[in-house]
């Protein structure tokens, strides 16, 4: 019979039950979809690492060594598999497709190609394209013991004339098996290699040029693998190929240091946690996992709150019924189960729908993620645990929301329950004591604001509901704003050039003069870059020291807080007096202004000590900066520019071709093109905010609907009395709406603060030397969020207003006090 009663109560107020279930569904979908995806992705990474024997350690040797001189070190106890190899960057040329490319910031956008400009149909036109290839040697016979490759197309290379391209650079330039790649040796010799295979590598799931450049475009940078014999023939006149890097897996973590100790001084060890590709992916995955728990927890917390509000109201309204049931002989347990059942049922239904939907959504997210990131091997895991957890969370949420009202119902004594409940207490709220003019307001206005304080718990729930929904919308918007700002700051304010050309070993000043005279070139800036290691108290960090000329601003540090005078101040009489560090380095290594940092040039391993004179707020690229000539003097460099920045008025493409054909040019980056694509992608990314807006909006809708409805139900007699006394229905509707809006406004404010805090926590979590993003919120974000929430508040209050308008005044006014 009690089940029949429960069923009829649900049918009588279907929207309240639906609202509660909806919140549960949203929370459970978010949890199950994101957590299942997280598990799938994590599993896929681990599986790829396992199958392809991803290294535990990398040791970079201080120069080239004969293989036999270093491989003994790999005999150390605890080493499982080891490989000695040669890693170097060489200029290369490929016949690249001229079609528009769907690639940006390390992400293959072809999976969302429908949003991008259509590729031209028809035969592919090709042009020679210069780029930098990171070449890694692979054994002539058999596969690498460590960091094996997954062949996507073609056959594993078996001849010295063959090369294997990492799939991103191959796909970007639309290169296929059988096409040629020309490599250029430092002495100017060149050799064409035939593409034997397109491969994926566990080391380059995320392709980074270095820690300072984690978003290289495949337009100018790629990874390739060449058999040792091929490199020996090409670079070492057929002699034995020397090596400069050891990679190995271990069964005992101590083996890393043991191998290092057995190698020449100057070798540096990188553990897996600090391998760039792995670290970027791990940061991404960790953030994903945190969000997979955090947001659902918020939703479910709100779900429990809504169920509590609904059930507390039901129990209060059904005191007489409870009294009657107890008088008829129903036990306390039966009453408790009955009033708990509503919340449990909402939880169960919400979690069942949510878990199934989440399972489907997780497959889609996993597929999308795998396609975008390019995980070599995908392995999904059975999701029974997550499904069980989702169901458990739903039930726990239902129980948390329902237990207090159910216990209150069960503990009512029959006589007490059937007695008239005492009149609702009224008192002057604290606000009126603090701000006495409120007491002089008209009586209707007083009713309006005093009601907000009459049931503080209910008001608090309304505020919290709106706050959580607002923060949900805002946190994703703020993250996007922050990334948008950082990208614009980086690519428009700091990197103001249109084209960047890298030279090896460097361009003499005459080349700069020639380039400046080229038609269409507006300005030229040459910089000197020295690969360096920074030695901090316990850590070594590899980066580059960039020498900039004060007054030249194609690479402009002024928006990063470093002006020309600061840059000039780094120059001393005989070289650098001090250096400017990227702010992220200062944070990571706890360095302050005035500290002394040891800087080792990786060109000649000479070591200098410099004072830290300042910090540059650059979002990407943890570089070190100094005055250009002083950098050259400090490290005894010839007058050569390793990188040249240009701004262009005229035909950029022609200039890029011209640059690529110049001797010594390693790669040419079309920064203007990159800038346009960044703008386009960021515009598109705002569309994804719509998803969060939808989720936050639904949450707010459900919460505000429930609390407003309950608020109206609790005050029906009072509101009906006002109407009977002659208060126009519009005035009552306004009062109720204003109450909702005031609570909504407080919720909006709290949500805005919460959103900022969460965004800053999220950015802080990602913050490292790889990214250094500040929390930025554009005013338009506040406006859009505020207006969106206002619309939701008005919309969610409408059913309650409709109920108010349709009240049977005579019937309601005769009721006892609820």
């Amino acid at each position, binding site marked *: 019979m009690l089940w029949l009663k429960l069923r009829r109560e649900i049918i009588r107020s279907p929207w309240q039950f639906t609202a509660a279930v909806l919140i549960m569904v949203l929370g459970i979908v978010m949890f199950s979809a994101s957590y299942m995806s997280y598990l799938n992705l994590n599993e896929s990474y681990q599986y790829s690492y396992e199958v392809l024997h991803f290294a535990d350690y990398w040791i970079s040797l201080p120069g080239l060594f004969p293989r036999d001189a270093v491989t003994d070190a790999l005999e150390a106890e605890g080493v499982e598999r080891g490989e000695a190899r040669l890693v170097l960057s060489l200029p290369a040329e490929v016949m690249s497709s001229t079609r528009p490319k769907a690639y940006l910031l390390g992400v293959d956008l072809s999976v969302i190609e429908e949003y991008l400009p259509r590729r031209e149909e028809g035969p592919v036109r090709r042009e020679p394209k210069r780029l930098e290839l990171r070449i890694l040697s692979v054994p002539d016979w058999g596969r690498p013991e460590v960091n094996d490759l997954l062949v996507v197309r073609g056959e594993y290379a078996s001849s010295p004339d063959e090369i294997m391209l990492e799939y991103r650079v191959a796909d970007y330039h639309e290169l296929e098996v059988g096409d040629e790649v020309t490599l250029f040796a430092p002495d100017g010799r060149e050799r064409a290699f035939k593409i034997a295979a397109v491969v994926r590598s566990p080391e380059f799931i995320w392709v980074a040029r270095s820690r300072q450049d984690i978003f290289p475009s495949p337009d100018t940078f790629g990874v390739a693998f060449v058999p040792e014999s091929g490199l020996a023939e090409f670079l070492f006149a057929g002699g034995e190929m020397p090596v400069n890097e050891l990679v190995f897996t271990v069964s005992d973590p101590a083996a890393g240091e043991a191998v290092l100790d057995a190698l020449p001084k100057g070798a540096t060890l990188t553990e897996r946690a600090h391998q760039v590709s792995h670290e970027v992916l791990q940061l991404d995955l960790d953030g994903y996992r945190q969000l997979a728990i955090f947001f659902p927890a918020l939703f479910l917390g709100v779900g429990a709150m809504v169920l509590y509000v609904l059930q507390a109201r039901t129990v209060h309204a059904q005191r007489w019924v409870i009294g009657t049931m107890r008088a008829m002989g129903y036990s306390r347990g039966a009453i408790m189960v009955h009033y708990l059942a509503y919340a449990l049922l909402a939880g169960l239904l919400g979690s069942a729908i949510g878990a199934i939907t989440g399972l489907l959504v997780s497959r889609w997210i996993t597929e999308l993620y795998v396609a975008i990131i390019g995980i070599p091997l995908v392995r999904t895991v059975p999701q029974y645990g997550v499904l069980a957890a989702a169901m458990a969370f739903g039930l726990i949420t239902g129980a948390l929301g329902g237990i207090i009202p159910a216990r209150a119902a069960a503990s009512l004594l029959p006589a007490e329950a059937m007695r008239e409940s005492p009149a609702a207490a009224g008192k002057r709220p604290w606000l009126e004591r603090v701000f006495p003019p409120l007491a002089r307001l008209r009586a209707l206005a007083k009713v309006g604001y005093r009601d907000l304080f009459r049931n503080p718990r209910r008001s608090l729930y309304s505020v919290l509901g709106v706050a959580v929904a607002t923060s949900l919308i805002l946190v994703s918007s703020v993250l996007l704003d922050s990334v948008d700002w950082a990208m614009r700051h980086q690519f428009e304010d700091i990197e103001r050039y249109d084209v960047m050309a890298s030279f090896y070993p460097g361009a003499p000043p005459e080349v700069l003069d020639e380039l400046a005279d080229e038609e269409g070139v507006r300005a030229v800036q040459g910089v000197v870059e020295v690969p360096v290691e920074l030695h901090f108290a316990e850590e070594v960090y590899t980066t580059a020291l960039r020498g900039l000329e004060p007054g030249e601003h194609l690479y402009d540090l002024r928006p990063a807080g470093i002006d020309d005078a600061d840059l000039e101040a780094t120059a001393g009489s005989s070289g650098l007096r001090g250096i400017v560090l990227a702010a992220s380095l200062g944070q990571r290594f706890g360095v302050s202004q005035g500290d002394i940092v040891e800087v080792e040039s990786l060109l000649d391993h000479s070591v200098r000590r410099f004072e830290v004179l300042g910090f540059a707020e650059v979002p990407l690229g943890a570089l070190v900066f100094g005055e250009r000539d002083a950098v050259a003097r400090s490290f005894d460099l010839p007058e050569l520019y390793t990188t040249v920045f240009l701004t262009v008025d005229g035909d950029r493409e022609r200039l890029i071709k011209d640059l690529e054909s110049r001797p010594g040019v390693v790669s040419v980056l079309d920064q203007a093109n990159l800038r346009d694509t960044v703008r386009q992608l960021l515009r598109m990314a705002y569309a994804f905010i719509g998803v969060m807006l939808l989720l936050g909006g639904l949450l707010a809708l459900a919460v505000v609907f429930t609390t407003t409805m309950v608020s109206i139900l609790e005050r029906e007699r009072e509101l009906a009395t006002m109407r*009977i006394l002659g208060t126009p229905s519009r005035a009552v509707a306004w009062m109720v709406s204003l109450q909702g809006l005031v609570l909504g406004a407080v919720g909006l404010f709290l949500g805005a603060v919460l959103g900022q805090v969460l965004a800053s926590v999220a950015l802080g979590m990602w913050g490292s030397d790889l990214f250094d993003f500040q929390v930025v919120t554009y005013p338009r974000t506040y406006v859009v969020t505020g207006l969106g929430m206002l619309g939701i508040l008005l919309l969610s209050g409408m059913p309650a207003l409709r109920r108010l308008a349709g009240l049977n005044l005579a019937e309601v006014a005769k009721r006892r006090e609820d």
Partner: protein
Amino acid sequence: MSAVVRMVGMSKTYRMGEVEVKALKPMDLELGEGEVTVVVGPSGSGKTTLLNLIGGLDRPTEGTITVAGVEINRLDNGGLTAYRREKVGFIFQFFNLIPSLTALENVEFVAGLVKEPLDPRQVLEAVGLGDRADHFPAELSGGEQQRVAIARALVKDPLLLLADEPTGALDVDTGVRVLALLREAAQRGKSVVIVTHNSAVAKMGDRIIRLRDGEVISDERIESPVDPLEIRW
């Protein structure tokens, strides 16, 4: 005594699902100025329906109801709201005070709705609650709350005072004091209608209308009504 309310052929029929309920059968009635009319009858006899129709909370199915020359059955919702605001004072069994307003503010609430209200504080003093003006309903006894409700009804200086079981939630001593206030209101020219199932209350009326099954079974004028303070039940 001139008629303030005139009902001609007035009836009310409800539909409750499939069933048609004749709450009031066609009736002709007039209520006079300064008169206390007590409507008595068992549950379901149509007492409250009659009160709701007079108070503009409901519309008759047939017939007309004219109050102070205005045929209120023709008014739209806004017109009925204005009618209730200007002409009718309501007193409920469970007082229906607004819990977040003090006694005085409850009276001021209504005073703020009409053009020429009486002074709320004076009205409150007139019902003997001058010293309780700043108390909230939860701080007042049932009798005090009902007196606030009467003050609230009187402050607009209405033509009609409609009381639905005004003593239903009160003890005898408190109840008779409330009835005395209603008698005083009638003496000041208000037309007072009291709906009750308590036949003892009927003794105070200038007129007693008895209803049964939606019909007026008797309409009795009392020459010498009992002083409310002498009533006991």
